[in-house]
């Protein structure tokens, strides 16, 4: 702390003219290029999503955007979306975790077994499931961060190992149905109308207040501020999109609790990644691990904690999945992992580390979920679904590789 204070004095004493006077705040250049780089970096994915939505809306004669279908869609993407958050964390580090789906289902099964066979309280069973996830993540992280084994191999081996543990835990059962009301009610229920509106709107209000406060602080000391036009667009979007979605959902059964939990997790991790030193250091380690180390960041601890966090999130997704399907399955869903990683990558998170936002997962999961949902509405075969999802994923990864190449060309 004293070091920082010294720095400030140093800077100020070097610049006597700047310490006292405040020049008028320069307005920021409002160009398409800066917009594309900053707020509208998601534009390509957003356009893709819109095209998919419009296509299915027409080809299913309006069923796709039916409130009931939107509600289903939102609940379908929650597990992929939560594992997707985990995938983003690991990808930002420049690593990969192929065991997320196996960990997810294994921890869900552990929770189910504790609840059904040991007759534990639902919350206690959930807690143990989450702790199991964290422990698995620490084991993964130990091999990757401390022993420096490539994460690809560690988590590939891990996924096979945990699939085995899943079979062991469930014993001879191929599915284990849970009856505990706590576990059954977690995912499929809806918020009542008042809270369905209140919680998101309070969140949006807080966000707008914080942005305005920061703009005022910037203006007060003469830093660049956003133009009113840009702020207007930014705020209208953050109000209009959620309000439209909530309105749609309210005209069916209300806001699904699972959906709200997912968005809540995304917001929490968004704050963690963009507003705390932990998040800043995560991006630094992913961008240039050696530079981060020299800046005094404990890269080993960072990797350990991220893998632990990712596996805990995966475990939570597994518990949500358990709640939604009311049963633990002994068979690993082979597409769960790939869809989660695809959601992150389609949303623009780089496979090479350090680039991408957590919001990528929302867009990516919606793209994947919409494809899956729309193709199901069209009664398409699984073969066709896989082909189309595969094509979308390869396009997204190609776009990432090309973008990376062009940004490296200076």
């Amino acid at each position: 702390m004293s070091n920082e204070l010294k720095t400030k004095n140093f800077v100020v004493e070097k610049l006597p003219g700047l310490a006292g006077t405040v020049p008028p705040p320069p307005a920021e250049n409002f160009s398409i290029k800066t917009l594309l780089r900053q707020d509208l970096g998601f534009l390509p994915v957003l356009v893709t999503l819109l095209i998919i939505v419009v296509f299915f809306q027409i080809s299913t004669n309006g069923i796709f955007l039916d409130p009931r279908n939107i509600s289903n869609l939102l609940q379908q993407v929650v597990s992929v979306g939560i594992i997707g958050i985990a995938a983003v964390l690991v990808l930002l580090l420049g690593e990969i975790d192929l065991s997320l789906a196996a960990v997810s289902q294994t921890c869900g099964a552990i929770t189910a077994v504790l609840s059904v066979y040991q007759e534990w309280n639902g919350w206690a069973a959930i807690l143990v499931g989450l702790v199991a996830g964290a422990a698995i993540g620490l084991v993964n992280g130990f091999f990757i961060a401390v022993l420096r084994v490539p994460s690809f191999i560690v988590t590939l081996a891990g996924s096979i190992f945990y699939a085995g543990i899943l079979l062991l835990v469930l014993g001879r059962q191929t599915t284990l149905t849970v009856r505990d009301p706590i576990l059954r009610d977690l995912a499929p229920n809806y918020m009542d109308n008042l809270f369905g509106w209140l919680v998101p709107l309070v969140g949006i209000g807080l966000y707008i207040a914080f942005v305005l406060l920061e703009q005022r602080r910037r203006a007060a000391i003469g830093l660049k501020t956003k133009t009113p036009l840009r702020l207007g667009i930014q705020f209208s979007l953050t109000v209009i999109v959620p309000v439209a979605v909530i309105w749609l959902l309210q005209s069916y059964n209300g806001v699904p609790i699972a959906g709200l939990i997912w968005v809540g997790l995304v917001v929490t991790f968004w704050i963690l990644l963009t507003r705390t030193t932990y998040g800043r250091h995560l991006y630094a380690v992913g961008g240039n691990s050696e530079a981060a180390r020299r800046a005094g960041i404990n890269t080993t601890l960072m990797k350990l904690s991220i893998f632990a966090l990712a596996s805990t999130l995966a475990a939570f997704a597994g518990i949500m999945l358990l709640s939604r399907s009311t049963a633990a399955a002994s068979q690993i869903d082979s597409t769960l992992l790939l869809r989660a990683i695809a959601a992150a990558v389609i949303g623009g998170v780089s496979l090479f580390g350090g680039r991408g936002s957590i919001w990528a997962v929302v867009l990516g999961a919606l793209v994947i979920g919409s494809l899956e949902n729309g193709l199901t509405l069209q009664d398409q075969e699984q073969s066709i679904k896989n082909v189309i999802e595969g094509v979308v994923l390869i396009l997204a990864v190609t776009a990432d590789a090309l973008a990376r190449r062009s940004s490296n060309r200076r």
Partner: protein
Amino acid sequence: MSEKVTAKTAGIGVPRLQLKGINKTFGAVRALMNVDFEAYAGEVVGLVGDNGAGKSTLIKVISGVYIPDSGDYFIEGESVHITSPQDANRLGIETVYQDLALCDNLDVVANLWLGREELLMGTLNEVEMERLTLNVLRSLDVKIPSVRVPVAALSGGQRQSIAVAKTILRKPKVVLLDEPTAALGVAQTKQVLQLIRRLREQGLAVVVISHNLHDVFEVVDRAIVMRLGRRSATFDIKSTTPEKVVGAITGAEFGEIPAGTEAEV
């Protein structure tokens, strides 16, 4: 040995940084033999020499990467014991290596404050960090389009400047620059040389390792020449010529004409 140091650039007061009788061997190779080194506040010292002359070894001893076999290390006249780069940093010795150690994906502000971020109620104080960043860049006369672009988007000279600014935030006493102009074009080299002058104006002792004699004559006050692990000569740049410095680097000064070897300058 030709010691041509004027009173103007050196010898006034106590050196900021002084090394005496440094020896360092790697197995049978004697990389440094009884080397003295000194840098005063407000001067730019050029450390020049051919490949394998011991420049890099000496810089690594100064920055704490290597521990010398014998010799003494003084900062502002006080004997210090440096066993790691962190020790050196703590005592105000900052080194900018050729790889710059920047995170390309982070913006200028994030890079400058990496590992020592300003906080406001537990969260990053972006406004304050941006303000201080602008102040530091202005004090160094560094011009970049925006402090909110990822450093990947900046030119080589700008990146070099950011790496230097990062060390300045730590209020160093001595800044070591390893080949700061090696990978740069003409205009960018000019920027970086200007930056080095600004560091000198701020009263720092600046040590520049360079292969480029043109740059050395542009910006350096005093050149220390290393040859075959020894400090072979010291020149006051204002009263010497490139030929003499090249002579000292290649050993031609002592009459031994290097057969078929060009001095790498």
